[in-house]
Each structure stands twice: as structure tokens, then as C-alpha cells.
């Protein structure tokens, strides 16, 4: 009798057990697939000319697929921007890497980001070891980015739902500022909150992708100078246009 009960219980437990094992296996294979795609993405970014080892290591480490909506995950590592809601996008991986490299981030640097979006750029900077202060005007995006970054263990990112125009005065000055929501002018407070010797990068564009990068440097005397950059990857394309 006992054997019979054990057999019935075993039979009853078998399907869910198989299901759980299958799910775990699928999860493993999915994780492995994402990792392979991520490594391929970083190899491509390297080919495009990004050399900074800290930036590349962070891009290898941060799970980009966790920063895009579920229905976009299979395209997460493609070389293009993706929508994340509220008319916002997560930038092309190459642009994220390029902007990160321009900022020359180092561990313990204090960085202000205006326009958190999904939190991916903040996670890349945090992975390098920077303390990231990030501001998002859309409350839902700020909340979801905060939860996501906490869940993924990026404790060195602070997310605030606020108007980026005024910067983050209590935490200023910053070693670097990244403004992903420039609308034809750069808020004076952001320039003020940049340390002498600090760097700022402003990607200008639309949903279709970054068209123009503006790099701003503040010298030790507080004077600012900008440079309009064409990311190196795009230069060869110009030859095809002649």
C-alpha cells in the first residue's frame, strides 16, 4: 500500500518537476543566449572604435535586455535604439558606449544624468563604480528605473523624479554631466553644477537615434568650451555619400 501511494505521489509530482526543470533549463539557455548576444554587441562596439576598457567591461556586464520592455527583449542587443514608453528610447548600444568613453568615467566619480529613461546609461556608469545621480521628469519611468536598478543591485545610483532644469543642487558639483533631454538649450544650472575640469555630453537627436553629440568641457577657471562630435563609427559612412 505504501509503495502504491509513493508511486502515485511520484507520478503526480513528475510533470511539475519536469516543468520546473525545463523552465530552469530554458532560463539558463536564455541567459546564455543573452550573454552571447551581449558579448557580440561589445565586440561590434570595439570594432567601431570604442577602446576604453572600463566602458567595454561595463557594457559586457550590464544586462541590456533587462532595461527594455519585455516585447523588445529579443532586439535588445541590436545596433539601434528601442522604445521604452513615454516617447523615450534606449539609445543605440554604440552611442551609450561612445558617450560613456567621452566622459572618461572612473570609480568614485560623481556623475549627474538628466533623462534617466530605462536606467541603462546610469547602470553602465554605476558598473564602472561611479556614483550616479539621475533625474527623470516622467514619474512612471523614474519609478520603474529605480526599482529595476535596485533589483539588479546598482546601489550607487540615485533616481529622482524631478525637472532636470535645476540639476541636483544638494549633490553638486559633479565630475561629469550627461543630458539626454536637451531641447534647444542647456539649462544654466547644469553648467554651474559641473566641477571645474568637468565634462558634459549632450546627445542631440530624435527617436530615430543620435544625430549629433555635443561635448562640453569646463576648464579649471570655470570657462566652458564645446565640441560638436561626429562619432568615429559614422565617419566612414561619409565617404559613401560623396
Amino acid at each position, binding site marked *: 500500500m505504501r509503495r502504491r501511494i509513493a508511486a502515485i505521489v511520484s507520478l503526480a509530482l513528475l510533470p511539475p518537476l519536469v516543468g520546473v526543470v525545463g523552465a530552469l533549463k530554458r532560463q539558463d539557455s536564455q541567459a546564455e543566449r543573452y550573454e552571447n548576444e551581449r558579448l557580440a554587441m561589445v565586440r561590434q562596439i570595439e570594432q567601431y572604435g570604442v577602446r576604453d576598457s572600463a566602458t567595454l567591461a561595463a557594457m559586457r556586464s550590464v544586462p541590456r535586455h533587462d532595461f527594455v520592455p519585455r516585447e523588445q527583449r529579443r532586439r535588445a542587443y541590436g545596433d539601434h535604439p528601442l522604445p521604452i514608453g513615454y516617447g523615450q528610447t534606449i539609445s543605440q548600444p554604440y552611442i551609450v558606449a561612445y558617450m560613456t568613453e567621452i566622459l572618461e568615467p572612473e570609480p568614485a566619480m560623481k556623475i549627474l544624468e538628466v533623462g534617466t529613461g530605462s536606467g541603462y546609461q546610469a547602470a553602465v556608469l554605476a558598473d564602472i563604480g561611479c556614483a550616479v545621480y539621475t533625474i527623470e*521628469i516622467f514619474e512612471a519611468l523614474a519609478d520603474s528605473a529605480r526599482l529595476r536598478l535596485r533589483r539588479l543591485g546598482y546601489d550607487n545610483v540615485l533616481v529622482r523624479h524631478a525637472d532636470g532644469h535645476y540639476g541636483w543642487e544638494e549633490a553638486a558639483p559633479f565630475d561629469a554631466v550627461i543630458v539626454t533631454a536637451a531641447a534647444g538649450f*542647456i539649462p*544654466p544650472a547644469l553648467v554651474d553644477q559641473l566641477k571645474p575640469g568637468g565634462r558634459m555630453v549632450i546627445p542631440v*537627436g530624435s527617436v530615430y537615434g543620435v544625430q549629433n553629440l555635443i561635448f562640453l568641457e569646463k576648464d579649471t577657471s570655470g570657462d566652458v568650451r564645446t*565640441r560638436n562630435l561626429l562619432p568615429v563609427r*559614422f565617419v566612414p559612412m561619409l565617404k559613401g555619400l560623396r
Partner: protein
Amino acid sequence: MTRYSRPLAIALISASTLSYEILLVRIFAIEQFHHFAYMAIGVAMLGFGASGTLLALAGRRPEAQLERWYSRSALATPLALIASATLVHLVPLDATQLLWDSGQWPRLAAVYLLLALPFGVGSLLILLSLTLEPERAGTLYGASFLGAGLGTALAVAVLWLALPNRALAAPALVAALGALAAQSGVKIRYKAAAWAIILFAAAVYVKPLWRLQMIPYKGLPQVEAYPQARRIAERSSPLGWVVAVEADAFRHAPGLSLAFRGTFPRQAALFVDGEVAGAASDWGGNSTARALLDWLPTAMPYALGKPEGVLVLGAGDGMEVWSALAHGADRVVASELNPQLVELGAWSTDASPVRGGPAPVDWVIGDARAYVARSEERFELITLGAGHGLGAAAAGVHALNEDFLHTVEAYVSYLEHLTDNGVLSITRWLTVPPRSNVRVILTVAEALRRAAPAALADGMVVARSWATSTVLVKPSGFAPEEVAKLKSWAELRRFDLDWYPGTGQHETQFNVLDEPTLFEAMSAAVAGTDSISAFVAAYPFHVAVATDSRPYPHHFLRARSLLGFLRGNRGAMLPFAEWGYVALVATLAQSVLFAAVLMLVPAALRAGEMGRGGWWLVVVYFASIGFAYLAAEVAAIQQLNLLLGHPVYAVAAVLSAFLVCSGIGSIWSDRRPARSGWHAGVVIALLLSIYAALLLFLIHQLQPLHLAIRALTATLVLAPLAFLMGLPFPLGLRVLTGEGAVAWAWAANGFASVVATPLAALIALDAGSPVLFLLAAAAYAGAGLTLRRAARRSGAVLLQT
């Protein structure tokens, strides 16, 4: 069926489908971007062609059955219009993801088919009428043209009266009346159904079943999602849907100096068709905030001193008007096309230079080119601002927009309206590598070469901020002390002077470009025309001078470059792609694909039935006149845009004139012997060649006149051509008879029109409207010769006619 009920039904159904087509252009401009307008025209033509294919495949049917189909297609048209508008708003299409998300393509196809549905059903009614009464082809085809002409007027009228969402329901109401007219002499249940549909369409007009689904990347949905944002006003007209939104987090200061440390005024965002068009700013009551105006790149000419008279072109929200007043201008003339933008710019009394504002401001509501052409007044400063937003400039979403404010003829006219010491100031957003900035420099230099050649060496200054470039032109030349003033003003604001009289070599103090492109462009411009040609040829983008015959100052991508993009990595093209241009090419590819598939299927199935060689004569003839009609229309629209000042007026005038006059021509054709059909093709070709040579010249002469007189003259000028263009289709039908010929003719004509719409736009973009007129002329001449050959082949048929 009474003698008049069928033409009446056709006229009403045609009016409904054409007004739906025009309203779709507006809806696409609002929900997506302007360049999707060509898709709206393409789907209409697709529907027309598909109905021809369907009937060709159906083969010969008894008359009673065709009459039943006629009644049912009339009843189905209003329902299809309502179903199309409702269902298309349920498809979650994000066209921006088409390049890398294959899941968007079936959605786009669904949108295409849903939009084509009412055009297919509506044109089936016309086609069945032509099949049932071939002896009245001219009258019936003419009724279709006349109805379409009325539809144009209906669309424009309804856009003044209703917001775009509700306006989209109006065509169904008109179609329902057409359905009732079509039920003359049929069973009572059909009539009852028609009355029920009228009531249903009226109910949908009162409470539409759909809501506008704007893509989320436009400024309006984003600013409305800001905390405490609220829509404070909205207006609709054919010129655009204007919305004002108040939100604390919205600020507008295009290209503001990095050195500015003052306060911002209270502002409300202004949108036209969902894109930022400026801000209603409370400058009046806050002199501290008004200081901001002096830190914008557009304030540069005021560094030369207080101007007496200022002309602001494209004044829109009034910011540049306030800048002129804040800098002490004694008199300001502000020109703006859209009165509703000016009205909402006056959001509060204090913010308004119109109501309760300072006295010396004259607003000229209308086309700036026309104002400049008729005005005798001269100004110390004429200024043009950067216009639309920074992101839009970079993404090239305005590449297809005709813009007659930035052509060389326009710049010459501005220079002629300057006082002896006057200055022209033009500010544009900066892209990398520079595009519009380079074109402005080359165009201004060409204008100066025409108006004041001696001033080339010392009459231009080019300044650049972190985001913009400003070109100042002074035909009398800048004195050294003026250059010193400009230098000092720019230095304080961290702007660089790329060029000024006496520039030695390129200097950059504040804003570094990888290459000194603007300096190089100016050097080439000053050196002479050969040097300009060499510079343009070597530059990666198309930056040649924009002219009135090719008025696309925002289009920079060369046609051949697109192939390179398609072959290469799509991500690498992102910074350079002009999305308007890419969308147009994609529309052409889709049109060719659909046209080929739907033409080849019946060709394979029915080729034998029309006799050896018969079908290709029908196809060549009706495809040629289909292409030529659309090409002539597109060319006329482009040139009348300059005359009437806005594409909507140009579209309305050209379509009305073409359709009504062609309709009269078609009706008249019933009295003409079919053998004269080929003469019409040749005469039209001659007329089109004359238009190619002279129409633009005539438009320049008419520009100073009042808008109503210009519109009337335009109609009179187009009328004879349009009248004659109504002849070839019905005359061709009478010559090229045979089994299934009507359906074949309809399909060939419809599909040639599908392909012609984007193709003609591309030709206009790359070669200009006169070339398009000439191509249309060649196509009509070719069609005439084809008809002559067909007439010789079918002598028996001709004898009967």
C-alpha cells in the same frame, strides 16, 4: 434608374473618397509625420486600381447582377469609410521601428489595406457605372471628376469647422448621401438600408468611433505627460492643428548662450500638428526675463545698434518680435502664415504683441514671399529664425517640405527690401557635418552676387553657437567698427565668428567643429562660381543652392547615397538618414510591388481574351495618361505653393481646378469623335511644355497681388490644361474597346497613378518641377501616339464611333 441619379451618386461618392484622401494627409501629418502624406495618396490610388483588377477577374456578368453590385458598392462605401477610420486606429503601428522590427511590416500592410478599402469600394461603383453605360463614359467620368473637385473643397471647409478627429467622419456622411442617390429604381429594402446608413454616419460624425493616435515621440504627447501639464487651447484649420499646453517644466530658448545666467519667463508650449512650433512667453510683464532675448543667437544683428524698422519672417510665436522690441525697434512688421499660431501665441494679454502689447507691431497674416513682393517698405533688419526643433532638424523629418523662404530668389527679394545700411539675418540649427548652414551660406552668397556683387568680400558675417549658426548679410558692407562690435557681442556669449570681413584664417575660441566647414564654404562662396561648384561636388551632402523651381532647402541626401545606406549597416546610417526621403522611397517601392502584383495577376489570367497585342496598347495608353496626370498635378502643386503660400491652398486649388475642369472636359468628350483622341494627347504635351518654360515666371509676376486674385488667376491658368486632360481617358475607352477593356484601363490607370505619386515627388525633389512638367508632356505625347496606332488597328471600331 433616372438619367441623373447615377452621375449624382458617382459625384457624391467621388467627393467622399477624395475628401477622405485629403483628410488622411492631414491625419497622417498629425499622427505620424508629414512625409507619410504620400502614403495616403498611394493607398487611394491602390484602392482605385484594385477595383479594376477585381472586375477584370470577375469576367463578363449579366447586367442585372452588375446593377446589384452597383447598389451594394454604393451602400458599402460609407460603411467602408467608417470601418477604415475606426480599424486603422486600432493597429499599433510604430513606423519608426520598421528598419529593425519585422513585426511592424504586417501592421503597415494592414494599415495600407484598411485605408485602401473605401477607395476600392467607392471606385468599384464608378467602374460598374462605366461598364453598365459605356455610351455615357464621358458624362459618368466627368461626374466623378466634378465630385472629386467638390470633395477637395469639402475637405478644406470641414478642416476649418471641425477638429481633425471629427473631420475624418464627414466623408462617410457624404458617401451615405451618395448611397441613397444610387438606390433610384431599386427595391425598398435597399432604400431603407441607405437611410439607416445616413443616420449611422451622422451619429459617427457627432461622436466619432476613433481617437487620434499620435506617435509618442512627438513633442505634444511628451509635454502633456509633464507634471501638472494642461492643454489650454486648441485650434484647427487646413494650415495645421495648433495646440497650446501650459507646463512648468517646458521652456523654450532656441540655442541659448551657455553664458546666460538669468531667469526664464512663464511659457506655454505651442504645437502645430503635434510638433513644437514655439512658445507663448510672458515677456511683457517681466523685464528681467526679457533679458534672455539678448542671449539668443538671433539677437546678433542688434549688436550693431538699435534698428528702426524690422521685418520678422515666419514670426510664429512672436519671440523674435519681442526681441526686436526689446532691442528698441521703432517699428516691427511680423509675417506669419498661420493666424491660429499667432492667436495662441497671444496666450496671455501680457504675452501678446497683438493684444494689449506695444503699438509699433504690424502683423501680416499670410505668405511672407507675397508680402515681400508687394511691399514697398524697406527695413533696417530682416530676420529669419531657426524654425522647428533641434531634433527634427537633425533627423531630416522636414526633408520633403517645400520652403520658398530659403531659395535664392527669396534671398534676393529680402536684400532688395533692406535700407542702405540694412542687414539680413538668417539663423539655422547646426548639424554635424553641417548641411543647412552650408546651403544658407552658398544661397546667400549667390543672392548677393545677383543683388550686390561688390559686397561679397565684406558683406557677410557667419557666427556659430554650440547649436546654431547665424549668417548676417549687409549689401553695403560691414565697417571694421561693426565687425569689432559683433566680435565683442559674440565673445561675451561664447559664440564664434567663422567668417567676417578681413578673416585671415579660421579661428575657434568656444565651439570646436572637427573641420572648419563653414569657413571653407564661405571661402568657396567668395572665390566664385567655379569654386562653389567644386565645393558642392566634393561635399558629402547635397548642399547646392535652393531655387524656386527646386525649393527643398532641407533635403541633403543624394539619391545615390541611399543605395549605400541600404547595402551597409542600418545603424551607421542613422545620423545621416533623412526620414522623409527614406519614407518616400519606401512608399515608391511598396507601390511598385503592389502595382506589379495586382497588374500581373490579371494580365496572366486574361491576356488571351483581348486579342493579340490588344492588352498592351490599353496598358501603355492608360498607364501613360495615369502617370502624366499625376506628374502634372504634382508639378503644378509645387509651383502654386509659391503663388498661394501654403501647400494646403496649393493642393486645394490644383485639385479643384484639375478635377472640375477635367470633369467638364470628360463630359464634353462624349460629343467628340473618338478618332480625335490622339490630338488631345499632343496638344496637352505642347501646353505642358509651355507651362514648364513659363509658369514660374508668371507666378513671380502675380505674387504681389491679393491671395484671392492669385487663386483666381491660378485657376484660370490651369483650367484649359485641366479641361484637355479630361479628354484622353474617355476617348481612349471608346477607341480601345474589347473584352474587359474598361477594367483593364481602370487597373492600368490606377496603378500608374499609385506609382506616379511618390515617383513624381522624387523627380520634383531631385530635378525640379519644370522637368516634371516636361516628363508629363512626354508621357501625353507617347499616349497620343499609342492611341493613334490603336485607332489604325481597330478601324472597324472607329467607324462605329
